[in-house]
């Protein structure tokens, strides 16, 4: 029984950590946010060159067969650096989904492009009414002689503005909240009938709203089995939730450490505010909440690795805890930073905003608490 990283994992951690330390300070990050598409294309190429874009893919698919541990390692560091490049949306979610349900042709066509950094994909699965239920799909897929025709609206497509291809969930059969009847389609972003509105989110990332009007795709665009997409979507959602939680855990660590450091330098009433016992105990609580979320993260990662039946339950425990404790840690950090915590000069407020966004992605605290309860019966 050990929680040590392997040699390769340690190298990976050091590599990402060093990059964040040396090349990704908060000012750099701000510049990336302001660039076309909301991230730095050159940095993305660096990620490709450093081999980070291939980590989660099997060797067969051109990757190194990394698992949940490797993803956790990278995401924690990305969290500390507030990385805005579309790693989660393109590599983990879209790439992960392709690897899971794509056929050989689809994989060979696209995964290589993701891995070498030349292609960006985005999953368009959320709809305005669906909130956290990925089976709640009103976009329709009508099959025809030439393939399919898609109609509907998609919401909060992460980094949808810079994607060249969407993976669109659409309903081939059934009512809008049926678990059966949903299919996935690979849709070029420049297809006729797609309108996209690209917009920034408060955390400096980007998302897009899509409307699809009679968008035509060939039969070969079908990804996975017709009408059976929900399990794959929910499976990738669980994996993405763990990755995002890892990002949040990285931020929580940074937040409690930076708060401790700030409190030791900030003087009021002639002493560093770290001397005040009430603040000390609250910083201990921040530390504790980080350790708890870190433990739940390891638990979820280990159960994924072991293929345990209770993986989803562990994911919900983790995502719920991060929602509550992550936000609490960030709130406390701002309070202890005082006025400085309210400024964009410090990154502490940006951590809060990113944690809040993460809390809405793939289910907020209440959603996961309810799912935890239903999985406990």
């Amino acid at each position, binding site marked *: 029984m050990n929680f040590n990283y392997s040699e390769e994992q340690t190298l990976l951690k050091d590599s990402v950590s060093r990059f964040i330390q040396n090349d990704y300070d908060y000012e750099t990050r701000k510049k990336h946010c302001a660039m076309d598409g909301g991230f730095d294309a050159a940095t993305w190429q660096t990620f490709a060159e450093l081999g980070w874009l291939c980590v989660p893919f099997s060797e067969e698919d051109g990757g190194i067969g990394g698992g949940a541990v490797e993803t956790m390692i990278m995401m924690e560091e990305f969290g500390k650096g507030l990385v805005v490049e579309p790693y989660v949306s393109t590599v983990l979610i879209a790439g992960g989904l392709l690897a899971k349900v794509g056929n050989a042709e689809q994989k060979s066509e696209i995964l290589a492009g993701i891995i070498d950094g030349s292609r960006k994909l985005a999953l368009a699965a*959320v709809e*305005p*009414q669906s*909130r*956290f*239920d990925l089976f*709640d799909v009103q976009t329709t897929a009508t099959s025809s002689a030439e393939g399919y025709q898609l109609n509907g609206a998609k*919401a*909060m497509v992460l980094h949808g503005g810079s994607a060249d291809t969407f993976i669109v969930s659409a309903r081939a059969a059934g009512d809008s*909240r049926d678990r059966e009847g949903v299919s996935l389609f690979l849709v070029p972003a420049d297809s006729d009938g797609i309108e996209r*509105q*690209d*917009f*920034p*989110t*408060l*955390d400096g990332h980007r*998302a897009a*709203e899509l409307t699809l009007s009679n968008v035509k795709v060939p039969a070969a665009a079908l990804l996975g089995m017709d009408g059976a997409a929900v399990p794959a979507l929910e499976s990738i959602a669980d994996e993405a939730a763990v990755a995002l939680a890892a990002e949040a855990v990285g931020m929580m660590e940074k937040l409690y450490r930076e708060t401790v450091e700030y409190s030791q330098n900030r*003087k*009021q*009433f*002639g002493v560093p505010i770290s001397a*005040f016992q*009430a*603040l000390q105990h609250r910083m201990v609580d921040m530390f504790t909440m980080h350790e708890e979320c870190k433990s739940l993260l390891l638990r979820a990662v280990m159960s994924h690795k072991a293929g345990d039946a209770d993986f989803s339950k562990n994911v919900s425990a983790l995502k719920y805890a991060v929602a509550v404790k992550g*936000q609490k840690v960030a*709130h406390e950090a*701002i*309070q202890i930073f*005082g*006025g400085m*915590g*309210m*400024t*964009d*000069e410090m990154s502490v*407020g*940006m951590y*809060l*905003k990113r944690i*809040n*966004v993460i809390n*809405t992605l793939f289910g*907020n*605290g*209440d959603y996961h*608490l*309810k799912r935890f309860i239903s999985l406990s019966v």
Partner: protein
Amino acid sequence: MDIQLTPNDVAFRDEVRAFLKEKLSDRFKRAVVGGYIDKDTIVQWQKILYEKGWIAPSWPTQYGGTGWSITQKFIFENECAEAGAPTLVPFGLKMVGPVIYTFGNEEQKARFLPDILQSNVWWCQGYSEPGAGSDLAALQTRAERDGDDYIVNGQKIWTTYAQHSDWIFCLVRTDGNAKKQEGISFLLIDMNTPGIEVRKIDSIDNQHSLNEVFFDNVKVPVANRIGEENKGWTYAKYLLTHERTAIAGVPQSKRAIERLKQIAAQEISAGKPLIEDEMFCAKLARIEVDLMALEYTELRAIASVADGGAPGPESSILKIRGTEIQQAVAELSVEACGYYAHALGQGVGNDYAAPISTKYLYGRAATIYGGSNEVQKNIIAKMVLGL
């Protein structure tokens, strides 16, 4: 024991309501709901109140006050907030105005008070400094005497609306050798004086309300000093302890909860309106219960002042609980809005989400400014509990 309003107070309340019904047009209400209000709109509303003679209820009648009882003032503030009127900018009307009519000389009163009442001149507050936050008396900005002027050098921070302001009232150090609270003077400074620079602070809500104000050899006539040299701390303290009825923000929180309920009725979660979700309702109800308690705590404080006494110990919790409740409502509102709470695009999602987020983020400051909640707890521990 009686919380019924007297017939006189009922008549007064009805008068206020009729006034608000007539004058508080939808334009003002929409601006309030939309988040930050532009200066013009606020000024227009303040001028309407001025014309009615209701702009400064707390001021003594000889300076333009209304002569209302504390109960009437409370009714007025409550009705305005419940009706969704813009909040008055406090720096002139509630801060420097009372200092001027209490400690200023006749010339200062004549010169400054009318423009404050008429909203002709905007003020901002120069108290906080980078090294002096909760420990306000640690301020370093210094004013050195040079004939009939002071030469002011230093820096103020967190100056709300400095970018809109014509004047700033400042605490400055006029005696560097005296003890912390001594050696501080209270100066009124024209923001157009050479040597003043206002720099925007980028804040987490992506709005512009906070600033830094730099003073580089700024010449301020000694005639602009309030009261005696080195006695500024006394005047500032007066301000901090000055009757502040609306500190708990009860009607504002009530309105925010109403708004949240409307949003939760529109938002769909798990296929049904969020307002039908028991887990959500439980969180909302907990906040409502706290607000119901706060509302009565405020009434108790008002009643004890109306009765000729000082506010009781219960009043000490108004700021702490008021700001905590505001934050809790804002957090839950953000949660209710789902994804779109975090979207910055024009026309993306529902139009109610963006102001909700701005309010939530800016609202993090509520527990920091005006004496942080930690400092408030220290004060209660010492002054109320005797610890």
